[in-house]
């Protein structure tokens, strides 16, 4: 446990090694990355095993003095972050393995693995951080990893735009986090979690300040987790290679916002307003993003909007006071969404397109990928006995028990949407007649299948960590942590899971009728509501609205000041220079050699001096 600091450093080592020697190693770079992340995974599992019934551990060293406040850096192990360590290093390891096949033949193969290492380092560092400043540091570094990997195909204008957008939009959120951290520092004199929690417990911070800082920190989470209104970067981030989407934009980084709220839970719990904000933003995002997912044609974008929606669920859970449900869903989602992305990558790898309208009939051709995708789809749709069923149920229960009936209804609608868009995807890709492919469709190689199989297994069994039937292992485990939350069993009415299952089945059935059996025309709904469907198809015009307001506004404002700088400030300056020039010119006219003028000036000067003498009454005293 004392050696837990090695966990993030191993992937950092991979980054440095590949940066230095990657060019020579070529595709052997993959082995370095795979081996080092595997070691991280092993250590993480050991650390987590030690946490089961063990004590939290913390080690720190001085980093910088700010006045009388020493700022430290170090690492901390508690049940929550030990769990996150395992999730992150596991998914990272599997993605490394998968990428070996997926990225085969790429020119910058080693750069890709170097970036993966950098990202994994930052994400693990974020999870291990014992204080908010360190969280912020790694928070920005995961953003860097994400930025570099989204822009991996740097020569594509779309990738360039997406990378830039991701960085800037998340930075808008980061400023909120930045201010929140600083305000908390001046309130409590520390960045440390435990000091801050102590101050909240002792009611040192005023309620208004608690609400303000909690909401500012949440703004940071909104940016990273793609919540409304800062969600538009996440679908664009799909420009990155698909393994990246699985690792960063499904399983780990985007969940960092949820993790942040969870690790600052005492702060949020101390303010009802902050909790409501989290719940409302989460609930609305869940249904909003799910509705967009209904009509997208790009397989990765459907999954991206699905991610946004599922992250909304997690926020809803946390805002409704259910810490365990939020973390539980974070974990199950990491597995099934990473699975879905990797399976989607395998499909894309086989058919070389991302447009689902150009796919079809792949069930018989991709004999491993197809069933695994089905497992992922069933899991996310909340089909009974799959992992998503248990975690989503808990969220619904928590929301209902918390008395947030409107949000509860929204969450139910989102659940229906989820089942529908997932199976729309499934039927369009795998059922029906094969689309015309010039190339032979081949199943992916073994290094890509293994990660999917592992995740497929986890997507089924991870749900049993916390069930009403077998016991609440996860909750018991998490409750040993520093963050205290109510552990009493949420016993919502029995009709909630039943209703959820019915809705999920209805979504699947509708998708089947429209896209599987095709007894119902695909466009029966969009024809009935053309304006609504075009609104949804165009993602509620969020990008266009931002373009027209914020982006345009900033540009116009900048140009305005640019002209001011060029014509007013510069002109004033030139005016001064001109004045000096003019005085010089006039002055030189005096030197024209006329004795009379010299005499007149000398006399005038003498008169002036005498006058000053007379007025001041002596030497310039």
């Amino acid at each position, binding site marked *: 446990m004392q050696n837990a600091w090695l966990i993030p450093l191993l992937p950092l080592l991979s980054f440095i090694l590949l940066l230095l020697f990657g060019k020579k190693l070529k595709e052997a770079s993959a082995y370095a990355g795979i081996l080092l992340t595997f070691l991280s995974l092993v250590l993480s599992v050991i650390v987590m095993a030690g946490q089961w019934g063990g004590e939290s551990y913390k080690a720190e060293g001085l980093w*910088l003095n700010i006045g009388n406040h020493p700022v430290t850096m170090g690492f901390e192990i508690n049940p929550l972050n030990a769990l996150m360590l395992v999730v992150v290093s596991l998914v990272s390891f599997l993605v490394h393995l998968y990428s070996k096949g997926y990225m085969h033949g790429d020119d910058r193969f080693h750069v890709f693995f170097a970036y993966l290492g950098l990202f994994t380092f930052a994400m693990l560092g974020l999870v291990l951080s014992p204080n908010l400043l360190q969280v912020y540091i790694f928070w920005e570094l995961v953003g860097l990893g994400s930025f570099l990997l989204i822009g991996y195909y740097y020569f594509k204008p779309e990738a360039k735009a997406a990378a*830039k957008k991701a960085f800037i939009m998340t930075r808008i959120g980061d400023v909120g986090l930045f201010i929140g951290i600083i305000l908390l520092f001046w309130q409590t004199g520390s960045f440390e979690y435990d000091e801050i929690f102590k101050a909240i417990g002792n009611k040192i911070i005023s309620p208004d300040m608690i609400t303000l800082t909690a909401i500012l920190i949440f703004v940071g989470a909104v940016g990273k987790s793609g919540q409304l209104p800062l969600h538009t970067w996440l679908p664009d981030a799909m420009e990155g290679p698909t393994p990246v989407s699985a690792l960063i934009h499904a399983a780990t980084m985007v969940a960092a916002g949820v993790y942040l709220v969870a690790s600052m839970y005492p702060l949020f719990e101390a303010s009802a307003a902050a909790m409501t904000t989290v719940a409302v933003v989460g609930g609305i995002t869940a249904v909003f993003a799910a509705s967009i997912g209904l009509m997208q044609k790009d397989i990765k974008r459907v999954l991206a909007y699905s991610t946004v929606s599922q992250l909304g669920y997690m926020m809803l859970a946390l805002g409704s006071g259910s810490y365990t449900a939020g973390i539980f869903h974070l974990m199950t989602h990491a597995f099934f969404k990473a699975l879905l992305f990797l399976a989607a990558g395998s499909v894309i790898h086989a058919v070389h397109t991302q447009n689902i309208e150009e796919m079809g009939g792949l069930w018989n051709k991709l004999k491993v990928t197809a069933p695994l995708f089905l497992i992922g789809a069933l899991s996310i749709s909340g089909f009974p006995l799959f992992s998503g069923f248990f975690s989503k149920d808990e969220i619904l229960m928590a929301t209902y028990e918390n008395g947030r009936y409107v949000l509860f209804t929204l969450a139910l609608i989102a659940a229906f949407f989820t089942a529908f868009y997932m199976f729309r995807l499934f039927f369009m890709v795998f059922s029906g007649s094969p689309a015309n492919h010039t190339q032979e469709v081949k199943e992916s190689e073994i290094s890509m299948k293994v990660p999917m199989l592992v995740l497929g297994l986890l997507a089924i069994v991870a749900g049993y960590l916390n069930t009403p039937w077998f016991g609440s292992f996860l909750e018991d485990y998490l409750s040993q942590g520093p963050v205290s939350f109510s552990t009493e069993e949420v016993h919502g009415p029995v009709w909630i899971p039943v209703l959820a299952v019915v809705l999920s089945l209805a979504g699947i059935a509708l998708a089947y009728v429209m896209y599987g059996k095709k007894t119902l025309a695909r466009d029966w709904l969009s024809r009935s509501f053309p304006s609504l469907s075009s609104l949804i198809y165009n993602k509620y015009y969020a990008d266009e609205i931002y373009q027209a307001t914020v982006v345009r506004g900033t540009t116009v404002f*900048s140009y305005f*000041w*640019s002209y001011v700088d060029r014509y007013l400030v510069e002109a004033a*300056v030139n005016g001064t220079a001109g004045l000096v020039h003019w005085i010089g010119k006039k002055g030189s006219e005096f030197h024209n050699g006329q004795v009379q003028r010299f005499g007149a000036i000398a006399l005038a000067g003498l008169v002036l001096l005498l006058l000053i003498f007379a007025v001041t009454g002596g030497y310039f005293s």
Partner: protein
Amino acid sequence: MNYMLSLLVFSPLVGILALSFLSWKNERAIKLAGLFGTLLPLILVLIAAAGFHSSVSGLQMTEQANWISYTLEGLNGSMQLKINYELGITGLSLVLLILTAVVSFLAALASWNMKNASKSFFIFFLILELGMLGVFASQNLFLFFIFFEITLIPMFFLIGRWGYADREKAAYSFLIYNGIGSAILLIVFVALFMKTGTLNYGELTKILASPDGAAVAGSTFRLSVLVSLLIAFGIKLPIFPLHTWMLRVHVQAPPSIVMLHSGILLKIGAYGLFTFGVGFFPEEFKKLGVLIAILGVINLLYGAFLAIVQTDLKKVLAYSSVSHMGIVLIGLAAMNEAGVKGAIFQLVSHGLISALLFFLIGVLYERSGSSDIQDFSGLAAAMPVTAGVLLAGGLASLGLPGMSGFISEFLAFIGLFQTMPIIAAIGALGIILTAVYILRAVLAVTFGPKKETHSAFKDLTVLEKVPAFVLLALVLLIGVYPEILSKSLTTVLDTILLGLRG
């Protein structure tokens, strides 16, 4: 008696002497002499640093010699005036001396590929270095002023003779503005001398802070002196709206000289504001705190907004300098340890980062003959290392954690949030804007479809890798382990904060 500092300050003379014996035809020898001329001060400054005790408060390595002494006869009796030759360093001046020596050496290295870098270029270069070293080592206002003026003259020629198309206008604009600044400084220094009878920093501080200091210099006098200093050094820093001259210099001067200009010369403004403004008049500085904070935020946002729409990389960086100097003002205005420390960190950090970025622009210009953003695209294909370092430099500039820019930005804001949270919150918008303009410029150059014309470009040569990697390594070092810089600043900060607390 210890002559370390005098040796250091005047060490560029060795290079100048060597150069003057060389034939102007022997280009290689001239360049080598220029390079070794800057290596000597670097070695000396490192020796000085090794002998510096960061835990000891006050001046170190002081030198004093009688210099000018005369009696002023007036109607109110005679006055004995003495001006000594006084050198000495605090932790702050040591840090700036190291920065000067390092950046000068790397800039000399960056001049290696300059086709028209002649004998006189390196002579002016070394005189400039001498002036900069002297400014930071001086312990009295007279000496400071002389060294300050020494930097102006070679700079004028370096811009005017070796700059780009519009170089002469830039050189004159540089001279006029800085001349005005110098004139104000001179008046201020003379006024202080007449009131107190001394020009030594330490004695001045003591007299002005003493209980009967009010009799020596009244509060109106103090305030007007401080405002004059703010204007004089505001030109140098620069503070909006006194910044236009510096845009011209950034655009027109040769890249290696801009490395010095942006990296070090701008810092003299901040150093002066810090040593004389905060050091001599802490009470008055406090009164102006809100004003300075607002000026800082204006600098920060104004520079950032304008950088967003520039099409010339040099202008992007020039406005970025305006913006980043805003952070210095913000930090100083906070008047607490975090803020002042942030301001000092920003001096060093910006010095390194802007030197790095201007060096890279020089590299790009050398290959393409342009620094217009629109002339580049997808450079990462032809010059992956250059593109990587450029991106890293850009990230450092936008304050990515793990690099020096973050530490200074973070400390300055932490400081200001304690004293003026509303102004600080407005200033925090600059963090977003910085990301916008940096990424716009850097990605436009390195990302995107590659241009055919770029394929002939060579990536960084071994000689070019030295400045690039050394600067980047220093930026990373400070970013990862800020205590390395912080340690030597402790006593300076304690002294200053003591003054601020009153």
